[in-house]
């Protein structure tokens, strides 16, 4: 969340509510409605760390709002974040551990485990292709995100097939 807010502030100064709107606009429904409280908490921490600078602006008939802008250190942090390597593909390591250990427990067999995981993946996939979801158009960023998720699920399902072939 910190990097996201810093990246949004890199364009122009904004107050908390504007940042919430920008988040919604960019990620669309792919991002669970950001909690305004969480945004303010995060902004407070960033200010404490000297990455943003807050300034109160007085408004008539409304409470003051606090507009934030990036400090040079904040700008550096954004550049650093963009430069850093993003994390590579993640296996569902927890499932894999279960799969590896299940014969030792004697509590269930691998086929059951694989089937359950497959159902889970399929259900997730179904959820991603529900009508009204961004895959049907609209926000392109969100569509790509969903597409990515589906492809990951597809890969997971294929991997499950390989597990099935190799281990049962």
């Amino acid at each position, binding site marked *: 969340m910190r990097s996201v807010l810093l990246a949004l502030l890199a364009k122009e100064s904004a107050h908390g509510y504007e940042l919430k709107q920008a988040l919604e606009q960019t990620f669309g*429904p792919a991002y669970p409605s950001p909690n305004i409280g969480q945004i303010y908490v995060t902004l407070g921490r960033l200010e404490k760390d000297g990455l943003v600078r807050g300034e109160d602006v007085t408004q008539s008939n409304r409470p003051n709002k606090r507009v934030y802008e990036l400090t040079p250190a904040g700008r550096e942090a954004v550049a650093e974040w963009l430069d850093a390597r993003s994390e590579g593909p993640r296996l569902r390591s927890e499932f894999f551990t279960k799969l590896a250990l299940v014969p030792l427990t004697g509590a269930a067999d691998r086929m059951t485990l694989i089937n359950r995981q497959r159902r889970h993946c*399929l259900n997730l996939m*179904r*959820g991603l292709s*529900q009508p009204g979801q961004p895959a049907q158009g609209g926000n392109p960023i969100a569509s790509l*995100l969903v597409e990515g*998720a589906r492809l990951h699920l597809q890969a997971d399902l294929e991997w499950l*097939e390989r597990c099935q072939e190799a281990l049962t």
Partner: protein
Amino acid sequence: MSPAEKPAPDAAMIRTKDLVKVHHSDGTDVHAIRGIDLLVHPGEFVAVMGPSGSGKSTVLHLLAGLVPATSGEIWLRGSRLSDLTEAERAVLRRRHIGVVFQFFNLISNMSVADNVELPALLAGANPKQARERREYLLEELGLSDRADASPARLSGGQQQRVALARALANEPSLLLADEPTGNLDSTNTRDVVRLLEQVHDQGQTILLVTHDARVASAADRVISLFDGMIVDDADVRPPSDNKNAIGSILDL
């Protein structure tokens, strides 16, 4: 078989009992299907998944009556396929079954319009009815302007859409599709899947064989085949615990 075991004609669209298929090739027997019991009700949308060689396509060919089973029984709308001659199975297909394959779905020497009208004509419709049905289907699929084209002039996605129209031309009770998106890119795949969902919403029973989870997830029920046997048979529904499933993907 005792009468009690015999399913009532209206109860099931497809019922199989201990279905076995052995291919003979190069002197060795390949057990493609090793005992499958399957029940599909009218209106269901079933996907059959499994790794290649698991017998997915063989199941579909058996259900369509395109190849005879080695042993076991298949009932389609209450008729037992093994009771029918090859010609009777052909008649059953033309009346009640629409088939879509991965490749070669269209008769190369006929125009798109002729391809779509052919099954309707075969099922006994007169040319006028067949034409109206074709016009409706091609309109639905957005291919009205390609009616006179030769199949070779269509893109892969267009061909599969026409194939779907052709399979639906005789208003079949059962649509069988064998890897209908097998050679399509993701955009075309999405189009075909959307069409399947549409006809399913109108009450069409569909059994579809695929290795593509994205296609399979459109079905209400996914059957997993492994080594000629059903290893899982699950209803698919979107996760109910999270109303906004997509929202859970992005973890900021």
